[in-house]
């Protein structure tokens, strides 16, 4: 009856991620998905006044990094990270590469480059 445990990790505290975003569930700026690439525009020490989680994002995005990786590093739901990223984007503390549109996503050269990479790496 009960589903296998793999998909049902113990419930995490629910209030905290929402509180972190002041209850918001969608970013104020930008559209992010799990593979949106994010890069901080400044080094971490200049981020006075940021919430700890936002400061952490700045620290972890000194090199280009995906939203999924940030969420894993910060141990936060991806949706929460996206809201925080929206704020950072509005403050110009990050730049981002928007997700590609749904269909015809990867061009032929990109697909060929991936094949080549998988064969030679």
């Amino acid at each position: 009856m009960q589903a296998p445990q793999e998909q049902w990790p113990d419930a995490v505290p629910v209030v905290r991620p929402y509180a972190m975003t002041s209850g918001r569930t969608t970013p104020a700026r930008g559209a992010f998905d799990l593979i949106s690439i994010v890069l901080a525009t400044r080094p971490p020490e200049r981020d006075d006044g940021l919430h700890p989680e936002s400061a952490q994002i700045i620290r972890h995005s000194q090199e280009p990094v995906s939203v999924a990786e940030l969420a894993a590093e910060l141990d936060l739901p991806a949706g929460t990270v996206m809201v925080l990223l929206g704020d950072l984007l509005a403050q110009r503390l990050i730049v981002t590469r928007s997700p590609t549109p749904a269909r015809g996503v990867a061009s032929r050269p990109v697909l060929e480059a991936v094949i080549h990479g998988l064969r030679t790496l």
Partner: protein
Amino acid sequence: MDSVRSDAAPVVLPTAVKILIAGHFGVGKTTMVGAVSEIRPLRTEEMLTDAGIGVDDLSGVEAKTHTTVAMDFGRITISRDLVLYLFGTPGQDRFSFLWDELASGAIGAVVLADTRRLKESFACLDYFEERETPFVVAVNCFEGSDRFTTADVQLALNLDPGTPVLLCDARDRTSSRAVLVALLQHVLSLPV
């Protein structure tokens, strides 16, 4: 000089693409992600709540059902400008709306199958067929499972003849990479 990068500066962010590794519980999705990923598979969690709950209404929080769905993912850096992400899809039907988000923008999917439990692959196959997400079927050859030919599997799963079916060992990097290459070639072969 100020170290802030201005918006005008030519910041080149890599292109990110993704492939989904799908299949039923225990079929080896995370194993395959781990076999090809350059990083230990990471886990990201998404919180699911009943639709329409006012997030400001904390009074009822205890009574609501909240759950998290975990997705394991890995990364392969193809070049400085191109990164491939692999996402293991959460296994259950009820999370299909989460799949929508995952499937959106994906190059395609690998549907991992186990010949001892082929029927359990149907939900997954239906989903990608309906969405017209390109996929290949990779039969994870578990020890102790009967050997079937790819043609047997094609028939048993009632697959479109154009859908590639491969045998693989999800624990093996070379084998798993070959599956990814087969998917990419399949996508390239499709009419634009």
